[in-house]
């Protein structure tokens, strides 16, 4: 859509890039998740996030598949607006589960920011996405309910939480011109306006955190790329690099 302001485009792109890479990260657990139900869950949850990303990219560039591929896969690293939480490759299942929970509990709140958007397509997508997010949160909560009551598992999950929180806080890093997008009604508030509600969810789930002593990692925001980003982009582009017009 060409009538979107530059600020609106930045905000939509930031969310689309987060959704895209979160989806790609989840798909990397297919076949190697610790048990079958998790394999299926991560395939499905990843599929949803990729679907959301495709819809957001479509708002930006229209419905042509080649245009969506171009924006999804063929931008230079400095043109991406994702945060480090979704760019880093996690090899530990505990870390992955905690990231999944941290991301999805924030994602639901972020969709709510778009629910009354002045861009009708965004408002429509937000309704769909929010209803899909219920399943993601139910999945993460069910596993954590079971694991947080087991000493060994709880210890590992709490360690993972401590490691990931500074990076997770950078999810609320704003896109360029975010304030303009808010005044245009594209989004009802900056990403950071969700942070308090999200911290409350984290406290309720994992126990009260000393938030005053946890700072967002300054290198985990939207203007820099994590070291894992470049190899990941190579992996997800592998087929398209062989044949740009490949379909499946």
């Amino acid at each position, binding site marked *: 859509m060409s009538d979107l302001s530059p600020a609106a485009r930045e905000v939509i792109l930031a969310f689309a890039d987060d959704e895209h890479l979160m989806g790609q990260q989840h798909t990397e657990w297919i076949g190697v998740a610790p048990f079958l*139900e998790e394999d*299926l869950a991560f395939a499905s949850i990843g599929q949803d*996030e990729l679907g959301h990303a495709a819809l957001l990219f479509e708002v930006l560039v229209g419905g042509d598949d080649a245009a969506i591929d171009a924006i999804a896969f063929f931008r230079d690293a400095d043109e991406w607006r994702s945060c480090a939480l979704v760019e880093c490759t996690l090899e530990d299942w505990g870390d992955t589960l905690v990231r999944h929970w941290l991301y999805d509990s924030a994602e639901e709140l972020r969709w709510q920011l778009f629910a009354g958007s002045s861009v009708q*397509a965004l408002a429509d997508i937000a*309704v*769909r996405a929010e*209803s899909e997010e219920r399943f993601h949160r*139910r999945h993460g909560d069910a596993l954590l309910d079971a694991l947080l009551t087991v000493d060994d598992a709880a210890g590992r999950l709490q360690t993972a939480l401590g490691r990931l929180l500074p990076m997770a806080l950078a999810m609320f890093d704003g896109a360029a011109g975010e304030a303009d997008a808010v005044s245009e009604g594209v989004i009802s508030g900056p990403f950071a306006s969700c942070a308090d509600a999200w911290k409350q969810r984290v406290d309720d789930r994992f126990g009260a955190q000393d938030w005053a002593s946890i700072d967002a990692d300054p290198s985990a925001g939207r203007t820099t790329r994590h070291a894992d980003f470049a190899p990941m982009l190579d992996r997800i582009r592998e087929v398209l690099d062989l044949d740009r017009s490949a379909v499946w």
Partner: protein
Amino acid sequence: MGARRTRRTRPLAGEPDNGVSRHQELELAVHQAVASVDDPEYPGVSIVDLGLLEAIEIDESGAVAIGLVPTFSGCPALAVIAADVSQAVDAVEGVRTTSVTWLTSPAWTVERISHDARQQLASEFTVAVEIGRRAPSCPRCGAPTVEQSLFGPSRCRSVHRCSSCHETVEVMRS
């Protein structure tokens, strides 16, 4: 623009056929063409009966626009279904061009699945449909089923087990 919009989830078989205009005939033929497309996962079950068809618009030049709603936004079958619909509608006499669009609104829900399709899913695929919060009934014996896994072989299905006969039952949900 002269475009006409229909919202139909059932075939038009019962409609009077006397005095129908050429436009209505074409509309009926296009609807039947869309209804001839099966879900790729459930051969024999029409996408119309699954509630995927939302709108058919036909202008005076024979340009047809089909609006479909996806079960879930990331469903990998969307491209296949759209191509099948496009091919089926293109083959209808009087159709000049066909465009198929996946709509972002309204959201698909299991309530859109027709009664006949529910029976068919149950008898041919051992698939139940979750309506509201009630435990879906086992297609084999009718006893309540118990959820085993929130996510199943595709995004729109969870995996249940029958509390009585222990049959594994896939459950479509929204």
